[in-house]
Structures are given as structure tokens and as C-alpha cells.
């Protein structure tokens, strides 16, 4: 939700690929969750790799799957760290390369995860999602009222007229592939964790319904924000588009300059966007922690007490954070 306005500002309506890709993600996740959960309820699966371990009884495949779950999770976590750094530093006009804010934020995330575990991660996910959706319903209304809507754009005077051209063949090929590749989200460990942790199938059904309808608010709205921002974030000459480091924060700053309700909504959106990135980061962190602890450390220390295993998990969270900070 932070990245899509940035992408729309840079590439125009091609950013609608994020709408298409959500359907592939929901299709894959929903279709497989029934069996993953059923197997978990019958066989006491706890770790995201337990299904594969139980089904094939092969260490080779087990650790291959572990690798294929860990690698994308670490990359995903590093991407969240970069997003926190760019967004936070941009909002508070800090040096774009300043690392200390994101280090402090990540240490706070680790601490809250230690204290609250998966419950705190899931609850904060839900709360920030509600706040974010509310903000993303209000922001287009504010933009529409103060800067106009898509119907007010003139292709002849639009600062980036190339956005009105049809995408190239290469872009269309990539678009199609991107729409399908996120079927693979079903293998991500933090999503499998949620399948196991769900209260019942009914609550999963509600979640899938929300995610299916979400693109209409959480993907199309950011594209609107990004494409409209090209028109009102212009340089002093009034025609050439500005080149902010983070178009998303530049959009919110423009709304803050309006004062009143727009300023309030922009502040909420800033906070909510940071919270969204942080909650994604802590979900991935707890998944990495469980994978490494249960699949690597626990088998080496099979008689460790539950308390000791919990501390192993905490240490892994900290190490994963440090490693991802170095990468990010």
C-alpha cells in the first residue's frame, strides 16, 4: 500500500498489476488452506514445514522446503526494512541513508514480538489494516475534492503523457506473469502459520472475503493516488513532474499542507503505513524464528524444555533482524 503509489507515480496505470496479482494469491491460499489445516488438525502440525516432513518423511525434502521458505522470508524482511528506512527518513526529512531510525524501530519490533508472540502480531495486523483501509478510503476523497479526479486529467497537458500509451509487449508479458506468480504465497511460512492458528474455518472464510474485495480499496486507490500525484506534484514551472525520493510521502505532505481534515487523514495514513510495514516485518520475523527453532535447533537439542525453546526462538528473532538489517 506504500509501494503501489510509488510505482504508479513512476509507471502509471501499469501499477494495476497489483490488482491482478491479488486474485492469484487468494486463489492459491484459499484452495490449499483447507487441506493444510485439515492435515494439521489430524496430525498436530505446528511448524510450516511439518506437512512436508510428515507426508514424505525425507530429511532432504524437508530441508529443501525449509530453504525455499526461509530465503524468500529473509528477502521479504529485508524489503520491509528498506521500506521502513525510506518512509521514515522521508517523513521526518532525515538523511535518506541514515540507518539508526530503522535499527531502533526493528529492535522495538523484536521486543514487542518477544513480549506478545503470535497473538500480538496478529492483533496488530488487524488493527493497522482497519486503520489503513479507513485512511485509504478518505485520502482519494480528499484528493478528489482538492485536486480533482481522473476525469479532470487531460492527456495533452498531463506531465507524463507516456502513461496514456498502451504498455509495451514486454510489459504486458511481465504483467501476465506477475498476475500468476503470487499463487506461490501459499508456501510462505507466516501465512501457513495463520492457517494453523485460525480459530475455525468460518474466520478463514471471512478473511478470504475481505482479501478478495480488498483490491478495490487497497490497490486501485493507491494507483489513483500515484497517477493523480503526477498532476499536482509538479516543479515550480508547473509542467514538469517532481522527482521526490518517496512519492507516497510527498503525496501525504501535500495533503498535510492543506490543513484541517486532510492534514489529519495524512498523519493517520503516515502512521498507518509505517505500522503496516512494521506488522508485515514482525509476521515474517516470527515465522523465521519458528522455522529455524523448530526445524534446526530443536532437533539438535531434543530434550530442551519448552522455556528454553522459547528463548532459542527469541535469539533467532534477534539474529534474523540483525542479518536482515545488514542486507537491507
Amino acid at each position, binding site marked *: 500500500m506504500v509501494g503501489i503509489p510509488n510505482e504508479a507515480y513512476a509507471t502509471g496505470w501499469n501499477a494495476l498489476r497489483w490488482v491482478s496479482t491479488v486474485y492469484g494469491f487468494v486463489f492459491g491460499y484459499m484452495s490449499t488452506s483447507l487441506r493444510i489445516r485439515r492435515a494439521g488438525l489430524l496430525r*498436530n502440525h505446528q511448524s510450516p514445514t511439518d506437512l512436508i516432513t510428515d*507426508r514424505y518423511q525425507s530429511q532432504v525434502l524437508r530441508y*529443501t522446503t525449509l530453504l525455499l521458505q526461509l530465503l524468500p522470508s529473509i*528477502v521479504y524482511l529485508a524489503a520491509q526494512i528498506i521500506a521502513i528506512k525510506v518512509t521514515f527518513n522521508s517523513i521526518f526529512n532525515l538523511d535518506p541513508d541514515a540507518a539508526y531510525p530503522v535499527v531502533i524501530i526493528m529492535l522495538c519490533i523484536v521486543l514487542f514480538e518477544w513480549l506478545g508472540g503470535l497473538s500480538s502480531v496478529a492483533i496488530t495486523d488487524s488493527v493497522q489494516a482497519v486503520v489503513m483501509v479507513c485512511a485509504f478510503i478518505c485520502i482519494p476523497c480528499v484528493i478528489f475534492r482538492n485536486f480533482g479526479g481522473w476525469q479532470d486529467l487531460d492527456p495533452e497537458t498531463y506531465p507524463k503523457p507516456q502513461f496514456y*500509451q*498502451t504498455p509495451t509487449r514486454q510489459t504486458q508479458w511481465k504483467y501476465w506473469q506477475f498476475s500468476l506468480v503470487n499463487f506461490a504465497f501459499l508456501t510462505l511460512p507466516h501465512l501457513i502459520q495463520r492457517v494453523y492458528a485460525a480459530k475455525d474455518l468460518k474466520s478463514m472464510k471471512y478473511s478470504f472475503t475481505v482479501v478478495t474485495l480488498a483490491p478495490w480499496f487497497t490497490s486501485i486507490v493507491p494507483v489513483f493516488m500515484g497517477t493523480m500525484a503526477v498532476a499536482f506534484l509538479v516543479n515550480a514551472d508547473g509542467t514538469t513532474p517532481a522527482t521526490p525520493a518517496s512519492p507516497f510521502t510527498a503525496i501525504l505532505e501535500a495533503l498535510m499542507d492543506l490543513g484541517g481534515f486532510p492534514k489529519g487523514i495524512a498523519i493517520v495514513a503516515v502512521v498507518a503505513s509505517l505500522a503496516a510495514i512494521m506488522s508485515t516485518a514482525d509476521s515474517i520475523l516470527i515465522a523465521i524464528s519458528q522455522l529455524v527453532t523448530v526445524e534446526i535447533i530443536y532437533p539438535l537439542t531434543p530434550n*530442551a524444555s*519448552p522455556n528454553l525453546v522459547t528463548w532459542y526462538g527469541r535469539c533467532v528473532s534477534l539474529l534474523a533482524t540483525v542479518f536482515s538489517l545488514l542486507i537491507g
Partner: protein
Amino acid sequence: MQFPLSAQAVPTFLFALFAKDHRTDVHPWCLAIAGLTSCAYVFVVYFLHIQNNPDALPIDAGVSGFALNMAIVISLEAVRRAVFGNVATDGTTTVFPGRPQWDMPKWSRFGDKPLTPQLLWKSMEGTNEVITNPWFVVGMVFAITMMTPMVPGLEPPISADGVFAYEPSVVNGLPWWAFKIIMFCLPPTVLLLYAIYQYPNEYFTPDEKKIETEGIDPDLVELTREEMGRRTSYDEQNVLVQRRKSSIVATMEELGLTKEMDIEEEKATRRMSTPSQRKLVSLVSARRLENHNEQTDKIDEAAEEMEVDAKLAEETELTD
């Protein structure tokens, strides 16, 4: 990068979940080799070809890696079956026997029998799954594909000074192809909402009468909240679950449900619920009980009733 990498684990999960039996199952080493190879492919393609290369081919490392992954899986499995024959079994000890000991993980925490494809499919009987409908899968892929613009590229042309050769078509201010994408979001939304509507609110379980007369596979009894997550060591066997399953098996043996019944005998049994049948149902439905003490009491009560019934049966025999 995370999307292409996570796509390489998809074949493993799909075969694990949806292979029907040993004929459609795949050897774990084939899946592992394919996964590692396609993972390496993703890194090579992404860093050596796609990244920072304006002339890169329009290939997604994840989708092409997935295709490579599946091709390797199928090829390796075909070669393996040609050379060694299909050694997959019905999985009384393990699904693919004949592997070295270092490849066998500890799995007693999951149960005393392996999780076979047959068991997984049996556990899903009666539950509506749209992904098992090939037409739905085809429909979803088609609906998602139709969201791709699929138009001639770079129209209308723009001159060097930024002037259109002709005015672009717009719909409510949107380029027409962007409007088309948004409109084509509707079919997959509708399809998914239909699939969610078909999503069950709970897993199918046989009704009590069927359990009383035909019994139930103990391996298909869901764990209760109390039984799940109980581990004080890495591969500790779940004693609570074993105890409940043993009670179920014992009760079913007492009812003679493990043997083939005479049709008339079956009809007679259907007409009334005996205490033993009621015990069996209560053991199976322990999941519905929230209170652990109540569950323990039920199991103890069932055990006591079994003892009473056994004594009654003894006395009846003596009287006869």
C-alpha cells in the same frame, strides 16, 4: 525476489496435498532436486539477466522457474520409475521405503502411521474443494489472464516533443486499457466469492448414527485443543491422542465394527443406540468439548461403562 523464490516450493506443496495415491505421488528426492535446481535458476536469471538489463527478455524468474521445476520433477520421476520401478507403497511404515536411514526424520509426534495421500483424500471426503474441480481452475487462470491488457504496444505514438500522433482513447479520464483492466477484475472477484461461498464452515464429519453403526477410522479423528501442541520434547509421542484413539479402537472392536457385519445384523443394529455406541460417539466427538476435565471425565465414564457392560455380559453368560 521473494515471489520467484517462493514459487519454487509450490510443486512440493501441490504434490503433497493433491497426489491421490502411489501412482500419482512423486519421490521426495525428485521434488528436492527440482526445487534446488529451480532456486539456483531463479538467482542466475534474476542477477545475471533481468536486473539492471534494459534488454532483458520479458520472463519472470518465478514463473519460468516453476515451469522448469515441474519439468524436472516429471522427468526425474519418469526416469526413476523406468529404472527402479514405482516403489511407493500404501504407506504402512513410510510412503517411499528403501531410502537410507539418514534421510528418515523423526515423526512419532505426528502419529504411528505416515500421512499418506489416501489418508489425506479420505479426510477431505464430503468437504467441498473448488481446486479439485479442473474447470474452476481453468476458469480462474483464464479470468486472471484476461486482466492482462493484451493490446498493441505504445499506442498512440508520441513525438520527440511530447505530442500525441492522435488523441488517446480515455474512459472517465482513464486510458481505455486501464479501464478494461479494472472492468476485467470483476470476473475473478465473482469466481472467488463463489469459491468462498462454497468453502465449508466446518469439515465434514459423519453423523452420530453412522458412527454408531459403521464406526470411524481413528486416524480421521481431529485433535482437540488440549491434545494439540502438547510437547515437552522434540519428538514426543502424543499420549492423550494415542489414549483416545486406543479407546475408540477398543470400543469399535467391542461393537464388532471392525469385522464385516451380516446385513440383517447391521439393520438390527441401526434400529437402536446401545450404550457402547453412545460411548463411541462421545469418544469421537471429544473435540466438541471445551473443558479438559469434562473430556477426561467422559473418557473415564466411557471406560467405566465398558467395565459395567463387560460385567453384565459375563453375568448373562453365566446365567445362560
